[in-house]
């Protein structure tokens, strides 16, 4: 399969380029990767922790919020970088024959790497706070896989459509912001009033975030079956995304 190995080689080089250029082009380089989630975390601690006293399922609020931020940075980073990935390489897309799906995938992997670096900081924070990771921490692996499927599905659709309708990336940005508020990133699910519960649970990320906190910090009982719903939603989106991307890829070169 020379095509598959070509795809893999190209994907690897694109990821490497994004990583290296991020480290080299800014004055603080890699510091930004750590700085951004820390700034976000600071704001959450102030607003949700100090002002609003948001419930945090019995763990110190900074830990609670940061575990959410780590997961969320993958979702939001992957979606917003991925959606623009094809357009922002317009010159290449118009002039070089290569499998275009490498562009959104490289962007998603880039966001994953950022998120994993933030996870390293989370581990340090846990160490400082004397919180031992629960033995179920390995469950974060299936959690990231499910998130990856969801994000990839969305990004394949949005990055392809963004080539034809520039509004799509704006729409996606608004959507991501709203999604953040509707996801238990900065607050625990327990604040949601009972009558909104069913509606709230329609958000496929709710179960994923709940489970990952339970697995890492021991905030509740472990119920693996909550992964089914986001997994099915993700697979459906992935199937649609793959179909859309393949269908419109031949028209990228004339539309960027």
């Amino acid at each position, binding site marked *: 399969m020379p095509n598959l*190995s*070509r795809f893999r*080689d*190209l994907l*690897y*080089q*694109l990821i*490497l*380029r994004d990583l*290296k*250029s991020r480290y*080299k*082009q800014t004055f603080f380089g890699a510091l930004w990767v750590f700085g951004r989630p820390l700034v976000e975390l600071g704001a959450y601690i102030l607003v949700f922790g100090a002002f609003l006293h948001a419930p945090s399922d019995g763990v110190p609020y900074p830990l609670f919020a940061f575990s959410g931020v780590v997961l969320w940075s993958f979702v939001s980073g992957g979606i917003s970088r991925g959606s623009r990935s094809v357009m922002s390489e317009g*010159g*290449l897309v*118009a*002039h*070089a*024959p*290569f499998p275009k799906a490498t562009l959104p995938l490289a962007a998603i992997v880039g966001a994953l790497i950022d998120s994993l670096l933030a996870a390293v900081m989370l581990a340090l924070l846990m160490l400082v706070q004397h919180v031992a990771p629960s033995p179920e921490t390995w469950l974060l692996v299936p959690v990231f896989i499910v998130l990856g499927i969801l994000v990839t599905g969305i990004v394949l659709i949005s990055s392809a459509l963004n080539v*034809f*309708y*520039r*509004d799509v990336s704006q729409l996606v940005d608004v959507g991501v912001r709203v999604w953040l508020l509707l996801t238990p990133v900065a607050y625990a699910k327990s604040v949601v009033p009972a009558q909104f519960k069913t509606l709230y649970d329609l958000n496929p990320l709710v179960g994923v975030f709940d489970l990952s906190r339970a697995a890492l910090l021991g905030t509740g009982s472990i119920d693996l079956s909550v992964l089914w719903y986001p997994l099915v939603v993700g697979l459906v989106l992935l199937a649609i995304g793959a179909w859309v991307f393949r269908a419109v890829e*031949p*028209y990228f*070169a*004339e539309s960027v």
Partner: protein
Amino acid sequence: MGITVSGVWKRYRLRSRSLKEVLTNLVPRRSGAPARPKSMWALEDVSFTVQPSSTFALIGANGSGKSTMLKVIAGMMKATRGAVRVNGRLSLLSFLGGSFHGDLTGRENVFLEGALLGLSRTELRAKLDAIFAFAELERFIDVPVKFYSSGMALRLGFAIAAHLEPEVLLIDEAFAVGDTAFRDRCLGRMLAFKAAGTTMVLVSHERYLVEQLCDTALLLDHGRVVALGKPQEAFTAYERIIEADEADDGDDREGEPARSPLEIESVELEGGGDGPEPVFKPDTGLVAKVHLRAKTDVAGASIGVQIAREWHVLHGTRSNRQGLEITARAGERITMAIEYRPLSLAHGSYAIHVAVYEHRLAVSPVMVWKRAAKFRVILPETEGVGLVRLTHNWRLLSDGRPR
């Protein structure tokens, strides 16, 4: 390893780029407002075959569909109708070094650009030194590309491409830039590809390159096939299209004719017979007579004459370079003549541009009459290639036998 293009049509949608336009298009348009065209045909029923191991050229004006054709062959675009079959591993050279990221070093960039062109990491690692040697950038291998000049980046881009081993190679005007020495090396590399049996399709404006390199040429005009055959025949057809377009242009007087102290009334060519396009032989002479009228009192003005073929100016000079200046009173008529003997031009169609300079030191003309006269040069037989025919004689000085 050949290419078969059968009945290819390609339509571009000139479509809306935002949801706003999609929404406004849903509302029925009021009558009176002219509807914008929704699409255009970039290729119309194009068919041709590129024989294995042959070199094929796509020629034509900008917007004729050459690049679209190339992208359809490369599989980057889908033909609206028709089919393209390519046998063999394909590479497209276009936008050399397009993936380069300024903050990354030459070495780092080679790996990404190479991966885009379809070279594996192992191949690239093995060829890295050869690539930098070809580009003559060995000293800059670990320097960020943002410190490269555009020529250096281009050289590196071509060097990567030169180390591909394609069976079918598509080249999109890769020679548009670069200095002479580098172009020679590119040409050498392409001749090597040709010798190795690579099937090549070349999009180019350069007649000399195409005539030297290609077995067959296809002329496209507004997406349609106009000529398909030997490069010389295709270029002859191309010249005819250019002439027809120019004839439509009407007045070719550029600059500020109103401010010019001299009016060019007519330009007359002698030595080639009558008609709008007299015919000359390269070893005879051509006299161009420029009839002028002074609109005001003139002192120290001069005129310039250029001989051009397509967009190449082959020769240009000003009368004051031989000490001839024009001094006249308003209303007087002047005739200047310039003689070319021998004419020393190759077979083809030519145009004469005439310019007026206000004074000896004027750097640019106050007006230019483009294509004030046209003529044709016909050679009884071809005796070489190139844009000019230099007077020359061959002699055998030593035949290798011992004396």
